């Protein structure tokens, strides 16, 4: 379980947000909303420990995440605004390497399956630099299709650049993850209706 208590963040001399508290249980989704620059990305990065909070705490199963380190990182998948793909490697290679690096030894067939599911069949071996913007995003998101998935997904604008078909596909993946007891924290400016038992929203607007 992810618990966030009275988290606050300063940027430059500006207070981005303060007193953010929520908790996310298995099967729960939190949709972080707010205008451009309201601090959604900063919040997500704080949740995965890349940025330090000025105030408050993030706890995973009761322990502050700084104390957990690797144990916490093992539970989480963060997909940021940047795709994190190497332009010179193919989609297949990118996924294979990424999965192995986080200790998820997938086979080539599994990767091919995930890419196929993302509508990239026939482009598995093309260097990522040749792919279109939306195709790159699809490759990045295909990580979420590789089994067995991490528990906590932190997704920053996952639907950016995706066409409607791909958005629908992603939605299904996310619903599936939630129904299996996963957790998702999500930001998006698009109106995507995700069906889940436990959906919270959090507005960060100043």
């Amino acid at each position, binding site marked *: 379980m992810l618990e966030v208590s009275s988290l606050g963040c300063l940027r430059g001399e500006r207070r981005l947000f303060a007193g953010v508290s929520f908790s996310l249980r298995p099967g729960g989704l939190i949709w972080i909303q707010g205008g451009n620059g309201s601090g959604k990305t900063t919040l997500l990065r704080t949740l995965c420990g890349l940025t330090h909070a000025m105030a408050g705490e993030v706890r995973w199963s009761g322990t502050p995440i700084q104390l957990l380190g690797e144990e916490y990182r093992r539970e989480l998948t963060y997909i940021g605004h940047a795709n994190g793909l190497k332009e010179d490697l193919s989609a297949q290679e990118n996924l294979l390497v990424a999965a192995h690096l*986080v200790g998820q030894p997938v086979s080539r067939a599994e990767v091919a399956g995930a890419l196929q599911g993302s509508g990239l069949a026939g482009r598995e071996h093309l260097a990522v630099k040749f792919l279109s913007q939306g195709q790159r995003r699809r490759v990045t998101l295909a990580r979420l299709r590789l089994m067995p998935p991490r528990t906590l997904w932190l997704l920053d604008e996952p639907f950016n650049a995706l066409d409607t078909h791909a958005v629908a596909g992603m939605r299904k993946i996310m619903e599936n993850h939630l129904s299996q007891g996963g957790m998702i924290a999500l930001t998006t400016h698009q109106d995507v209706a995700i069906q889940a038992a436990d959906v919270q929203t959090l507005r960060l607007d100043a």
Partner: protein
Amino acid sequence: MSKLCGWMPEDAGEMMQTLRYVVFRDVLLAMRRRADVATTLFFFVIVASLFPLGVGPEPKLLRAMAPGILWVAALLASMLSLGRLFAEDYADGSLEQLVLVPEPLALVVIGKVVAHWLVSGLPLVLISPVIALQFDLPRDAIVTLLLALLLGTPLLSLIGAIGAALTVGVRGGGVLISLLVLPLYVPVLIFGAGAVDASAMGMDASGHLSILGALLLLGMVLAPWATAAALRISLE
């Protein structure tokens, strides 16, 4: 949920796997961009061959200069390729992903350093005898040069990684990195060139070489941690 998270064995094998895949990834990338490897090598050759052109053909003078020139060329070549060690990963977002890998960050750093050495240090070691011949170095000195480079270039990669990590996401990183790293390279240069020099003058080079070895050990123990700390700070 326990099924979701408990599938993974936690053992040393897994750490090795992470290490192996970091190395694999970076070497693969370098192979895709063979131009980079070639540029480093070329640079080494050009810097080293320029001096005979500039200084004139006196063999005695050239022989006296050779160890120093070869080592400075190696230093600069290794440093030139450092700029890309973390910068590209930072720009495309994959550095964040590497930091989030569930193994100690120092391990990832070691992997990247190994890959960097394989791609930019090793080829340079292998080509150095050819260039040493251009300077008419005696055979013993060439063997010493090989050994010294074999010990010294990994050390260059290790020290360089600290500088590269500190300058991640900083504009003008390429030049800044050299300002940070080159002064730290000085001992490697002195003992490396000293070894070759000694052996060219018919003396025993093992003293220099063992100091280089000791420095390498020290570097292997300390540098990955410093680099990991620097990376975390840079990503903050």
